[in-house]
Each structure stands twice: as C-alpha cells, then as structure tokens.
C-alpha cells in the first residue's frame, strides 16, 4: 500500500515534468534550439495568473487565458528580439547562451517587480481528487488534471504537426531549413509559430505547476525547467510522446529513490540515470536516430 502511495506521488510529480517537457521538446524538435528560458516563461505565466486572479478576486479561468495570451506574446517577442538575429551565427552556442541570458533577465525582472518574497498561489484546480481504500490512497485532483491535460496536448500537437499544413511546414523546417526555404516555406514565420505554441504551453504548465506546488517566487520555474529538460532528453529530445514518457519516468524515479535510497541523493540518482541512458541510448527512449548526410 505504501509503495502505491509513493508511486502515485511519483506520478503526480512526473506529470508536472511531462507537461513542461512537452514545451521544451516541441521548440527543440522544430527550431533545433534549447530554450533554456522555458522554465522562466512558466514563472512569468504563474505571476500573470497570480496577479490577474488576484485582481479579479479569484477568477482563475480569466487568469489562465490572459497568461496564455501574454506568454505567447512573450515567446514571440523573445524569439524575434533575442533568438532570430543569432540564427545565422556561426556557432549554435550563441543562441544557447542568449537563452540563458533571457532566463536571467526574466528572473531579475520578476525580482524587481514582485520582490523576492514568496507568494502563495491559489490552486486553479478546485477538485479534491479521488480516494481509494478508506482514504489511505489518494490521487490529487491536480495530478489527474495534469495527466489528462498532458495527454490532450500530446494528441493535439501530434495531430497539428502531422495533419495540418502549418505542421507539415514545421516538420520540413525541422528536417532541412534550406530546402524548406526553397520549397517556399517561410522559415521565420514557422519558427515564430513554434515559439508561440511552446510559450502558450508554458503558461498552461505554469498553472498546473503552481497548483501542485503553490509557492511562487522568481525562481519557481528554474529547477522544474532543468528537470523537464532532463525528462525531454531522457524521452528523446524532439519526440513529443518521448517528453511525456520521460517526464513520468523521471518523476517516479525521483520519488522512489527519495523513498527507498536517500532523500538527499535523489537528484544525483536522477541525473545519474540520465547519464546511463545517454550512454546506452544516446537518442533517448523514443528518440529517432537521424543519419547525418555527408
């Protein structure tokens, strides 16, 4: 019974990682860049929901909608101002480092505007969840909602990418940017759309992250962002179902190693697993091996 409890806790943590990893992997898969500021987009989303719902006396639905819109705009702006000018740079590291810069910029802006004090976030999920076996086993509402939302996002993204014209354009850009341009695809617009979707997902992830762990500070997104990145790599970065699986595996491993090995070593174990997976299967669990053409 206690194993089941821990397993469910792992599932609930993993579902949060999964939903963040979806946004990470989406942007990487198409734009081939690691947006290290993704975790901070989440934090921005949380603050927007917090402020808007606060101003509207607890109306979180409006808060989430405003957050999705503003995060989308933030993503588009960031892409336009910080990433696009560097896309032609000789080294792909330039964009990566800019992303880290954007991450610090957002964190410090949040520090400036909202201060370092933590704020308690009111959960947007009012549902208590399910209880089994006379209340000994409880699955929180936010866990169920997170898993359902991640699966929904997964399905919609898969459909969008494989079945729509814009999605096909994304695949083409991911495959070969030069050839896509020659085929008449507007690469800049396609990548901008990718960022827009990725950032909108960040706002949704933020709402669920802060509902599960209701403490909001300028660094709220930083560590979950890194963990989600690990999850995305574990599942095979670029693969959307992989992000989902990677997130869940990561969460369950983290909680179980905390429980049965050591509460302090769990991070070491989680990152150790990443190293092992990358040694055995460099592309991750669901990653496709892409032949580099010479």
């Amino acid at each position, binding site marked *: 019974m*206690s194993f089941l*409890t*821990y397993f469910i*806790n792992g599932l*609930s*943590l993993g579902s949060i990682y999964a939903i963040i990893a979806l946004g990470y992997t989406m942007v990487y898969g198409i734009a081939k860049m690691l947006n290290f500021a993704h975790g901070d987009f989440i934090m921005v989303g949380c603050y927007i929901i*917090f402020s808007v719902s*606060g101003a509207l006396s607890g109306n979180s639905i409006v808060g989430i909608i405003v957050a999705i819109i503003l995060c989308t705009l933030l993503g588009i702006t960031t892409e336009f101002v910080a990433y696009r000018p560097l896309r032609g740079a000789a080294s792909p590291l330039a964009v990566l480092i800019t992303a880290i810069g954007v991450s610090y910029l957002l964190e410090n802006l949040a520090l400036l505007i909202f*201060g*370092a*004090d*933590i*704020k*308690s*976030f*009111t959960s947007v999920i009012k549902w208590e969840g399910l209880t089994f076996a006379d*209340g000994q086993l*409880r699955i*929180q509402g936010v866990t169920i909602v997170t898993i359902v939302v991640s699966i929904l996002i997964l399905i919609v993204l898969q459909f969008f990418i494989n079945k729509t014209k814009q999605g096909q354009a994304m695949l083409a850009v991911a495959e070969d940017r030069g050839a896509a341009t020659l085929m008449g695809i507007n690469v800049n617009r396609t990548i901008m759309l990718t960022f827009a979707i990725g950032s909108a997902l960040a706002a949704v992830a933020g709402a669920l992250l802060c509902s599960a*762990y*209701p*403490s909001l*500070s300028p660094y709220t997104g930083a*560590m*979950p962002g890194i963990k989600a990145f690990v999850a995305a790599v574990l599942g095979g970065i670029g693969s959307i179902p992989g992000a989902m699986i990677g997130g869940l595996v990561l969460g369950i491993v*983290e*909680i179980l190693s*905390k*429980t049965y090995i050591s*509460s*302090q070593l*769990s*991070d070491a174990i989680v990152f150790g697993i990443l190293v092992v997976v990358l040694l055995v299967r460099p592309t991750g669990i669901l990653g496709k091996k892409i032949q580099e053409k010479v």
Partner: protein
Amino acid sequence: MKKMNKVVSVMSAAVIALSMLAGCGDTAADTAGTGDAGSASGDKVFKIGAIGPLTGGAAAYGNAVCNAAELAVAEINANGGINGYQVEYKKQDDELNAEKSVNAYNTLKDWGMQVLVGSTTSACSIAVSEYTKADNMFQLTPSGSAEDCVKYDNAFRVCFSDPNQGIASAQYISDHNLATKVGIIYDSSDVYSSGIYQKFVQESEGKNFEVVSAEAFTADNNTDFSVQLQKAKDAGADLVFLPIYYKEAALILTQASTMGYAPTFFGVDGLDGILTVENFDVSLAEGVMLLTPFAADATDDLTVNFVKNYQEKYGEIPNQFAADAYDAVFIIKQAMEAKGVTPDMSVSDICEAVKGAMTEIEASGLTSAKMTWAANGEPNKEPKAVIIKDGAYVSAQ
C-alpha cells in the same frame, strides 16, 4: 595592518583638521572620533550605537532593533541613566550589506561610540566583529544568530545561536510533553537548518520522545515534500520538527493538509514570517508552534509596558528582534553598573569591564526572566514558544 594604521592616522588628522576649521561648535563628537582614552573627558555621557538594515528587504528587522534600543535608552535616561550618567544613542543603516555595516561601524566610532548593539543580522555582525575585536570594543548583537557572530571574546549575543535553537527546541518539546514520536524535515544544503537538526538529534537522546524519521531536502529539490511527509506519517510521528525557513514550511503545511496528515508542527525562528506570505491560507498554520523568545501578547508587566510604549512611539507591535534589542541595552546597563563603568574610561577599558561582568550577571528581560552568559558569548536561558491561533502568535503555555 601597517597600511591600516596609516589610513587611520590620516583620517584622524583629517578629523582634527576639520574640527579646527569648524571651530568649537561640536568638538565633543569630533574629538571623540579619534577614539582614545579620556579624549571626551569634559563630556560625561555614555555613547551607545546600533546598526541594522533600516532600508531594503530586511528593514523590518533593522528598524525593530534600532527602535527598541532607542526606546530602552530613553527609558534609562528618564530613570537617571547608567551609574548616574546619561546615555546618547545613534543608529546607522547597513542595508543588510556586510561592507556597509563596517562603514556604519566606522561612522559610529567617529561619533564616539563606546559600546555597540549590533549588527542586527548574522553576516553583518560577523563582518563588524573583526573591527570591534581590533578596537576591543564591546559588541552585543541582539539577533545575530550564526555561530561566528560571537567568535571573539568581546562579542556576546542575546538570542540563541542557530544550532542552540536545536537544543532549546528539544528541551521545550520534552519539558512540555508535546510528543512521543518526532519526525524531522530539514534542509541538508543549508548550514542553519542542518546545524539545528544535528543539535536537536543530539539533545533528544534520553529525552521523553523518540526521533522516528529524519528526512532531508536540498535547495535544488525543495518543492515536493510528499516523501518526507509520508515517511513521518508512516513512522507515526505526532510532531514534525521543521528547523527550516517559512518558504518551504508553507509548502509543507499545504502538502500535509492535502494528504490528510495533521501532526503538531514545531519550528524555530526561520518560521517567523509564515503568516505574512502573500495569499497564504493562514488556517493551514493553525496550531503550528515556534520557538521564539518573545510573544507580544504576554501579560507580564514588562512586556505589557514595552508593547504599549513601542506601539505609541513607532505605531506597530514589536517583534522578537525588538525584544532582543531592548534587552540588549538593559543588559549593557546592568553589566556597566556591576563594574562601576564611567564614560571617561577608554573604549577598551569599558570593554574589559563589561566583558568581565557579562559572565557574572544574571539578567532579566523581555526574552527571558533569567539569562546568564558563558565566556564564549552564548546566552543561557529558558526557551519560550508561541503557537499560531486564528492567524496570530499567542504565547504557548
């Protein structure tokens, strides 16, 4: 050191030159600035200085300390001063910055300070103690709780040191029969938290309760506490000791409530502030106990008068920092009276006298009815706790 002497001599030369230029207007303060024996002989007052963050994020702490010290000095002066001499008081802002705290100290020294109440926070206190040691000036920090704040023999403190809060907590839990099985959740990446944890576990040996689970978290993994709480619950802990800051504690309380686990939560001074977290549901903190030297609702005459006077003068209810600082000034008074200290003694002589008196006196104040000190600067007093009831701190009895 050589360089330092040069700087000092250049500075004192400048001060003297300035005071000559300025004429005789306020030579007392200026000449006292050269800092040595008897230079303020015509001027028979004690000069006590206080340092704290009066602006910035920790302004609440610094203002509490400096206001309460001011209040204590005013009361002492109204009742005839120390050994018949009036006391002058001056406060300086350090903005929670160790370098600025040293600057503040130098400013106060130039003013002629003989005894320092400060600094308010640990890092600043440690930085300043290097200088008070060099000058052999008596330093009594009301609230600097890191171990190193009192590493020199001229420095003492009013509050418990961080690790000693672990000892005090174990004593309190045992003395008041709060629990038989205790779980602990602490931050192993933080010296404050792990220090308290270690002392708590040591002290709990042979007490009437048993530590059944001790689970750590780290600064990088401080959002999900489901495992730590579940383990405490499975081990049957009826009290969970939280030697951590309120940021994590707020999450722990929320998660414990979601999983339907309701032990007594017992924290230390890091928990102070949990009620001020924006948008926090204070009902989650109902019944949480924390070790603190001061509860503003206590009914003894001393506390009632202090709270009333403080509120009249500064418009708010004093916190534990204020109480520590208020006591600090009266402790200095008692120590000075024990040795018959007079204002014309040099800073160093005053320090030696007060230092000697500190280990001999038994002080009584807001934070404890009976305080004594060891030569290492650590106070020895009975721990007190408050309990959160209806969103406010109430003395726990």
